[in-house]
């Protein structure tokens, strides 16, 4: 099922936050350790380069076709949220293990919270539309507050069919 993981889409308390995927956990899950612990970039307005890097990493992780396109669209929406509303500064990180690919986008303003994700498709294209798209495109959308600002985490399982 696509959509928001309600249990973890809470802001503030940190309860239910997704634990970072680290190499030790990959081994504990019996997954293949690729040696690639992920990549991390500052966000700027060269979205083409950012999408190319995302595509490359997610392809190497085993994503392809519609699922790869969905992750690309969702990550792009998260990044333009940072440029448009999130103070203009932030970072994008991507990493994967044997079961999923995770993209994390942080901003410097810290204004974004899970409550901003519309439960239904907005009838116009004002703010919230990108967040709604992310919630539809990804297997899991988590928004919380990190020390440096807001943090959006998009996660795609590596064994799923596209959500239509």
């Amino acid at each position, binding site marked *: 099922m696509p959509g928001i993981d309600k249990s973890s889409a809470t802001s503030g308390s940190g309860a239910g936050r997704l634990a970072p995927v680290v190499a030790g956990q990959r081994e504990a899950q019996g997954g293949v350790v690729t040696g690639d612990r992920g990549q991390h970039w500052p966000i700027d307005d060269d*979205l*083409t380069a950012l999408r190319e890097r995302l595509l490359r990493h997610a392809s190497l992780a085993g994503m392809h076709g519609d699922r790869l396109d969905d992750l690309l*669209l969702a990550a*792009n929406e998260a990044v333009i949220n940072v*440029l448009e509303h999130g103070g203009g500064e932030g970072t994008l990180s991507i990493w994967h293990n044997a079961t999923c690919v995770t993209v994390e986008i942080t901003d410097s303003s810290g204004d974004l919270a899970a409550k901003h994700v519309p439960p239904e498709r907005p009838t116009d*294209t004002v703010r919230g*539309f*990108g967040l709604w*798209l992310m919630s*539809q495109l990804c297997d899991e959308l988590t928004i919380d507050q990190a020390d440096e600002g807001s943090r959006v985490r998009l996660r795609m399982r590596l064994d799923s069919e596209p959500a239509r």
Partner: protein
Amino acid sequence: MSTAVHVSTVPDDAVAASGGPAEGVSLLAVSGELDYTNAERFRHDLLGSIGSDRQHLVIDLAGLSFCDSTGIRVFLAIRKLVQDRGGNLAIADPHPRIRRIFHLTGLTDAFAVHPTVEDAVGFLRRNEDPA
């Protein structure tokens, strides 16, 4: 390098050679990637390319490889402009990635998305002449 998107007007003789459009139909081709960083300029370019003497508009998206929610907003604005002039807008040949965002935004029907330019022109012609 920033994101690039281009709008080109397809000449009538080229249009005629590819199946022949209805009278009063403009055909524009869009290529590149459309996103937050270039959507405003794209809106400007697109508005500048729409002929004032034509009623209907077909946008050929075969060359567009990416479009985000800000790009969708531009297409919505253009659709409104064309409809305000009493015309219709049809979209032709979108990349699966573009088709996907049109589908998710609920705009596949609103935009009259067609697999080819000929189909899009045929749709506008049928709409014009119910018989």
